[in-house]
């Protein structure tokens, strides 16, 4: 992977994370949360032929930890684990339908959100929020997949 491509990927994830924080401010009261940054990261891991392995995942996660003010290493850990899981299933995905893939990534986003809340919102941890966000992130994955496919065709070389 070239440095230019890595920067493009990084910018899309940071941008999605920024949008995510702006939207979540308004919807948290309704027990739902997006994980747009994580879903965009998952998209890149899922679709790239040259593979986003451990080190880029770790670096992107660490940068998000710095920017978002979450405990240092939390996103790095979750991004690395997610990258490993997605890579482990990359051949299995070929026999999955799009609906199955969507459910897989909705589950992954739900676990990501759960872990984030365990560390950052321990006193007010809400199972309802995690459960409802599963559906929301499933829907978000469909839109992200379509949007990022277009983005990839235009900007990613």
């Amino acid at each position, binding site marked *: 992977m070239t440095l230019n491509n890595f920067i493009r990927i990084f910018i899309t994830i940071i941008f999605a994370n920024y949008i*995510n924080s702006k939207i979540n401010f308004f919807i948290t009261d309704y027990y739902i949360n997006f994980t747009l940054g994580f879903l965009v990261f998952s998209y890149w891991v899922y679709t790239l032929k040259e593979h986003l*392995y451990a080190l880029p995942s770790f670096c992107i996660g660490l940068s998000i930890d*710095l920017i978002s003010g979450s405990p*240092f290493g939390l996103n790095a850990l979750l991004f690395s684990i997610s990258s490993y899981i997605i*890579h482990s299933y990359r051949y299995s995905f070929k026999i999955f339908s799009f609906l199955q893939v969507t459910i897989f990534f909705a589950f992954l986003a739900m676990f990501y959100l759960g872990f984030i809340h365990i560390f950052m919102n321990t006193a007010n941890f809400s199972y309802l929020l995690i459960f409802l966000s599963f559906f929301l992130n499933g829907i978000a994955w469909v839109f992200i997949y379509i949007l990022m496919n277009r983005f990839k065709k235009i900007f990613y070389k």
Partner: protein
Amino acid sequence: MARIAPGNTPKFGYFVLIILASLFLYLDIQYKTFTSTKNFFNAGLIATNLVIKNIVFTPISNLYKLTNNKLALINSNELLVNELELSKSENFLILNKDKLFNDNSELYAFINDIPNDYPYEIATISSFDTNLYKCCDNHRLHLFNNSSPFKKGGTVINSTGIIGQISDSNNKVSEVILISDINHSIPIKSNTFFCNANGSGKPQVLECKYDPSLWKESFEIGRIFYSSGLGGIFPEGIMVGSIISIENAADGDILLNIESIANPLTQKNVIVLYPNDIK
């Protein structure tokens, strides 16, 4: 879920980096090892934002405004808005004295206690992650420093009341821990009842837990609490909030949920007050 198909995923790299990330996470949560790194990064980010805004965006914006001959009007409008916010903050004690303090003597005592030469400092909020404020337990914001960094322990108020206290400072910015932060505690009182109200991690909600065998007092929804001044950080007698719900805790204690009247989302200008022994 289908079985994992054999692939050539490099397991060793993942193993090492997952261990490393876990170590970082442990060190940060247990020992706050990376707090200075994060503060340094935040300060750099805020300073960069400011420079970019002043060098790039403001001239472009001004140019546009000049072409419309509205620059003076817009500037004076911005100035007036800022002045109004500052004025609101400065006068909040006086404007709300009837309900904010138990009685007028506490207000006068409070005003008399403030040294005449340096009663307070006015500050501007430099960054406030409102998403973290809504979603998570840690409620922090950052202030631009004036000529010198704000001192730890300074009480931060806006026109709605006490919002927090200075928890950390560096050359560029100072960190404010809000009273609703899970790690914050403010001594409060209501008549003869005293307790330490801990932040609940929910916006504007504090929790006060007490043993009913020790305090015979009964409480009702809407009962108002004031700062007790114990601890010497927060001034005594300022209204903190009122009870919104009363719960029985699992260990037999009673938990009072108190909604703070102060809302940190309302203004970008705040006032930092110092107790006598700090300033």
